[in-house]
């Protein structure tokens, strides 16, 4: 039951429109600093583009997808009309206004600070205010998800919350808390400086606040993908979820351990004590658990589908899978990219191994493979699955959809594998220009060229994706039936209260944030002489 289709479609269309723009900028960036592009002679234009790419891809695009998907889940899984539709539209418009407000200073070259802000670099105040509005808009969604679940609970006392909604609300709580770090950085530190009230800033403290957001935000991006793994894929390929409990435990673990681990981004920062870096590193290792649980459960769920289709043998069942089904294809691609990206991530989180790849192109390759690859390909899958329900029309050209998914997968591998490689060779990230005529880096020219070609494959795939969705809006009308989520092998009749509510896990999330972040933040906030003069973009 999807009543507020317009609301959900608006979120998806805005998400994919800004995604298309940012993707184009990304491909241009790959090209312009590769040996095949002629250097611009102005690095500022490159950083301008990079800031826009990161801001859209990091803040606007995934947030809108999570919100749109969240509203759809709330209506379809709970089988009740969304409460607070006006608030939802208000949140949407806040994001629209915030995005425009942020993009104007970027386009004018007044906020080329990259989406990670990098104080003491300070851009135009409207850039930061725009980002704040985007976050505030998304917090409205968090509140609405909580309110809608509460209303459902009142009407169904003691009943198990449908898995999709349980996970969706977990994702929204994770976002609410993780965004607090960047919000504190913006409101207490950056915006007063950008507005001219102060002209020094504690850059070290700002980096700690940002690390609070920076890692868990990835798990917020990941939530829709994991929800799709558990609740869309098994149904779409004719199987069942192997274990509902395992799924709940995975989402709970994400909620608890995604937060207190962000300092593995600051291993090279002198203002953080080595003991805290070790604790964060150890907790980062824990975050592999929910992913391993998920990979196991989803492989088992897929095997169920294969055996129902007559698959036999230890591995022979793999051939019985519906490989022409886009959902199956997207899942397989997503898992392959998650596997490689996750393995790279284990290197990043190791205190010692990180030193060899810290701040190199390896990192850029890593997060593009995980986010742009494993996560975004499932966003495509989510859109393909929901589109017929949202538009009342059929997506007819499955071949085109498969081609699009293939291109995205191949493009992402071609882009990110050479990227990792040049990172190991020591090529730094965030550089606008490389002189490939220099004998020291001339051998890397081939890898960087390959990577840029991958960027264009991705651009082609992205355009196809938008074309498929646009054509879907004009296709002949067809009834897609009810929008259902996958059922478990053993559908839960009752669920222990700990696995049916979020309170305990939110409390643990906040508690671990206090233990792992409390002292480093207080130490820097209360120490004298830790601030440095701000460097204003474009000012003398």
């Amino acid at each position, binding site marked *: 039951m999807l009543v507020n289709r317009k609301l959900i479609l608006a979120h998806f269309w805005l998400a994919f429109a800004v995604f298309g723009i940012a993707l184009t900028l990304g491909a241009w960036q790959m090209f312009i600093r590769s040996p095949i592009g002629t*250097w611009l*002679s*102005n*690095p*500022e234009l490159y950083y301008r583009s990079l800031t826009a790419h990161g801001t859209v891809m990091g803040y606007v695009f995934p947030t809108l997808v999570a919100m749109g998907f969240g509203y759809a889940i709330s209506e379809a899984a709970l089988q009740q009309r969304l409460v607070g539709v006006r608030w939802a539209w208000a949140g949407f418009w806040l994001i629209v206004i915030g995005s425009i407000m942020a993009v104007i200073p970027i386009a004018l070259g007044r906020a080329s600070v990259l989406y990670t802000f990098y104080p003491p670099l300070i851009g135009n105040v409207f850039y930061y205010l725009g980002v704040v509005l985007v976050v505030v808009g998304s917090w409205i969604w968090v509140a609405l998800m909580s309110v809608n679940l509460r209303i459902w609970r009142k009407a169904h006392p003691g009943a198990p919350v449908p898995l999709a909604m349980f996970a969706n609300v977990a994702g929204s709580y994770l976002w609410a808390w993780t965004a607090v770090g960047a919000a504190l950085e913006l409101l207490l530190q950056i915006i007063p400086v950008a507005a*001219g009230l102060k*002209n*020094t800033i504690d850059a070290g403290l700002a980096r700690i606040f940002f690390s609070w957001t920076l890692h868990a935000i990835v798990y917020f991006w990941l939530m829709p993908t994991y929800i799709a793994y558990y609740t869309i894929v098994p149904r779409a390929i004719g199987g069942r979820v192997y274990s509902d409990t395992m799924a709940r435990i995975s989402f709970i673990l994400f909620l*608890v351990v995604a937060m207190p681990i962000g300092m593995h981004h600051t291993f090279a920062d002198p*203002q*953080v*004590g*080595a*003991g*805290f*870096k*070790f*604790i964060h590193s*150890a*907790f980062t290792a*824990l975050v592999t658990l929910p992913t391993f649980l998920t990979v196991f459960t989803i492989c088992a769920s897929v095997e169920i589908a294969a055996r129902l289709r007559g698959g036999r043998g230890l591995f022979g069942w793999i051939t019985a899978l519906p490989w022409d089904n886009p959902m199956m294809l997207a899942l397989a691609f997503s898992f392959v990219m998650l596997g490689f990206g996750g393995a790279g991530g284990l290197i990043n989180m190791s205190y010692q191994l990180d030193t060899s790849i810290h701040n190199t192109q390896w990192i850029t390759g890593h997060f593009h493979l995980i986010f742009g690859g494993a996560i975004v390909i499932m966003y495509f899958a989510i859109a393909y699955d929901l589109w017929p329900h949202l538009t009342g029309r059929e997506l007819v050209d499955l071949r085109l959809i498969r081609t699009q998914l293939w291109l995205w997968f191949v493009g992402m591998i071609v882009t990110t594998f050479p990227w990792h490689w040049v990172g190991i060779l020591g090529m730094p990230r965030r*550089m606008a*220009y*490389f*002189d490939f005529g*220099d004998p*020291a*880096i001339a051998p890397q020219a081939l890898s960087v060229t390959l990577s840029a070609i991958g960027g264009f494959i991705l651009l082609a795939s992205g355009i196809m994706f938008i074309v498929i969705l646009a054509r879907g809006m004009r296709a002949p009308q067809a009834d897609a039936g009810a929008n259902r989520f996958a059922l478990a092998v053993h559908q839960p009749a009752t669920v*222990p*209260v*700990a*696995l049916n*509510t979020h*309170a*305990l*896990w939110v*409390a*643990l999330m906040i*508690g*671990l944030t206090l*233990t*792992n972040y409390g*002292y*480093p933040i207080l*130490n820097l906030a209360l*120490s004298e002489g830790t601030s440095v*003069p*701000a*460097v*204003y973009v*474009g*000012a*003398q």
Partner: protein
Amino acid sequence: MSTRELFTLTNRHFKASVGIFAAIFVVTAIAGFIVLPFAQPWVQFANVWDAICSAAGVPQRAASVATPEQSKRLSEVVLTSNTLSRPSQEAIGRGATLAQRCAICHGPTGVSRADSPNLAGQYAAVIYKELHDFRTGARTNAVMSPFAVNLTDQEIADLSNYYADLPRLPAYHPTPQLPKPNIVIYGAPMRGIAPCGSCHGSLDNKTGSPWLEGQSEAYMKAQLQAFASDERRNDISQQMRNVARAMTPQEIEQAAAYYASQPPDIVKAVD
């Protein structure tokens, strides 16, 4: 079961989850704060508390490291983007009177005829810093140092504001504009040289960095050579010395010739 019963020790989920996470935290904390600090044979700790404080990042005064004797003075100036940003008309007027003694080298309109820097329209923070450095001896020059040594803080600020207020005029002998050389626009990433233009104009300007358009070629060349040879050392954190040392003589000549050939009216306005 209600949420209230969730947070009780009789609930095994509560007991198990809190217990497990507390145990993980305690174990990792013991490893990170006690075991690993002592596992470093090259670091000595007085006691366990000392090791814990070190691992927690408590700011500590270095115990017995003797700071090397500084034979030459370093710059003591702290600049922010707001240094001297809103001068009064009185300050500019006082600066104009004081500037009469500067005119013999820096020109009556702030444009030099003697290979000294052109000061008309130079950023106030730049003049402020250099005058301070001449006064303290962080930068020395046979001609400039005696002028600067008796200036008060107020006089330095007034002079800086006055020159910053003057219009940027063309150089005394303008030369045809040269194209941008690589060192200005690309730098040399493999040698750790940022583009000149990323601080000194053409691409961007940074606090404390002078704009260079239309300045004397001989002067700029001499300063780069002085930085390279460590003769001039009032740059903060050796920024310019590191760049100049890595530059080739040809690059020094190209950069100086390029900036000297640019008209100063292309310099971005100060915000």
